[in-house]
């Protein structure tokens, strides 16, 4: 059994307040949450039933023109420009007049892009010193997992974490979120985003969203363009698929009729559209994800899947995962919507507040250095049994 009430709320209150700051990629998120102090949390395994109340959840995204990605330096500048204003706005929304009431300030420690992470932690440290509120450094992936568990109430799911920077299949065991499978090269969201860049379509609002929209227009769903299927044991590789589908789309744009996959060799008639390519790419990538997720479920004997991360908003991915789960005994898929799937401050506050309640706040500012590489299984999960 776990005691989540080890550290009591400030000033004898019967609730906790946490501020979460997220800025590991192109999204800057500020969230404020509240947990009631409940006797049942003193001796239980209820870290997914905190009765979370969201007081503020705001986000500002650094948007680049279609065809361009976001660079660390420019993203950091965006975060620096907006961070203080977003915190001010979040405090107003949450109705907090005295920020020193906060129990903790949670920030993303990693993984992510170094410069944007750093720009946020500088503000987090300053706020902590100004208001005399302890800091908690949060692993971004654990933030996604805890947010998903609290929203969907999934008790012990296999977690598929799919975003612009990460692709992992995770399951909990003995105080760690253990990685069962992951990408060997690029993340799925990165693969989709870079293909979107080739197609000169924007990457807003989440990785792969516009590819998903184009794929819906595919009229020839029975015919898949054959792409490499690169599952390596429990892991995946996606850079080869991206290179291949990029070259196909270039042939398509240049009207290279020599490509027999795309054009009829005799008549020169175009056989495949951009929508067809998007559809085939999605089907191929998601099938790979479903395969390794199913294998992880068999390993840990679980029948629940929780999909988190920006690509987790993709309805087609959720459908495919649901159909796999239906075929297994009575399985369920849990997914959240864009408010929580896409990077946000609330998820950092949620994971950070759990850590704080277990007595795990930063004692020395030297421990607040952000890191680009921070694996999910490095975090000791004290708040679960």
């Amino acid at each position, binding site marked *: 059994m776990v005691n989540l009430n080890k550290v009591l709320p400030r000033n004898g209150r019967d609730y906790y307040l946490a501020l979460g700051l997220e800025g590991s990629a192109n999204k800057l998120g500020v969230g404020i949450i509240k947990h009631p102090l409940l006797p049942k949390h003193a001796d239980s395994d209820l870290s997914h039933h905190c009765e979370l109340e969201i007081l503020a959840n705001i986000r500002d995204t650094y948007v680049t023109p279609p065809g361009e990605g976001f660079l660390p330096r420019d993203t950091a500048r965006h975060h620096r420009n907006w961070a203080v204003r977003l915190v001010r706005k979040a405090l107003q929304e949450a109705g907090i007049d005295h920020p020193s009431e906060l129990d903790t300030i949670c920030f993303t420690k990693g993984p992510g892009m170094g410069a944007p992470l750093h720009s946020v932690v500088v*503000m987090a440290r300053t706020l902590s010193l100004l208001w005399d509120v302890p800091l908690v450094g949060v692993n971004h992936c654990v933030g996604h997992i805890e947010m998903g568990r609290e929203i969907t109430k999934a008790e012990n799911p296999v977690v598929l974490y799919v975003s612009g920077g990460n692709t992992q299949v995770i399951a909990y065991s003995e105080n760690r979120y253990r990685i069962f499978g992951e990408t060997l090269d690029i993340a799925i969201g990165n693969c989709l985003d870079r293909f979107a860049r080739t197609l000169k379509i924007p990457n807003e609002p989440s990785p792969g969203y516009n590819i998903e929209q184009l794929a819906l227009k595919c009229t020839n769903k029975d015919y898949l363009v054959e792409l490499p299927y690169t599952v390596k044991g429990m892991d995946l590789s996606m850079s080869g698929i991206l290179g291949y589908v990029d070259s196909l789309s270039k042939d398509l744009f240049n009207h290279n009729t020599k490509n027999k996959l795309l054009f009829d060799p005799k008549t020169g008639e175009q056989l495949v559209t951009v929508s067809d390519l998007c559809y085939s790419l999605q089907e191929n990538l998601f099938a790979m994800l479903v395969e390794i997720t199913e294998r992880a479920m068999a390993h840990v004997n679980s029948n629940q899947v929780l999909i988190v991360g920006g690509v987790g908003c993709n309805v087609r991915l959720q459908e495919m995962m649901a159909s796999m789960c239906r075929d297994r005994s009575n399985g369920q898929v849990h997914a959240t919507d864009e408010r929580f799937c896409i990077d946000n401050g609330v998820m950092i506050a949620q994971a950070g507040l759990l850590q704080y309640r277990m007595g795990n706040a930063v004692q020395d500012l030297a421990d607040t250095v952000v890191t680009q590489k921070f694996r999910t299984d490095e975090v000791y999960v004290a708040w679960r049994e």
Partner: protein
Amino acid sequence: MKSVRDTQLPHILHLEVPFETASQAQTAVKVLNPDPILKPQDFHVRYSANGPKLCLDFESVDDRVLRVGVSSVIESVKTILETIDEFT
């Protein structure tokens, strides 16, 4: 504080940033101190507070590295100043 070094790098710069109070300058030092310098053999920086003034001492192997390093520290100082301005 960083350990005392026997070799000094050739390019140096001293900056002073005035804050409103001594404790604000102390805060800035505490916020800046934890972050490691990526190439300690090429670039050093020392943060200290002298009353309400934040003192920055840079040393570097060449002027280009100095310029890049100084501008990145100044960006952080700007964030600290804005945060203090907004919430004090």
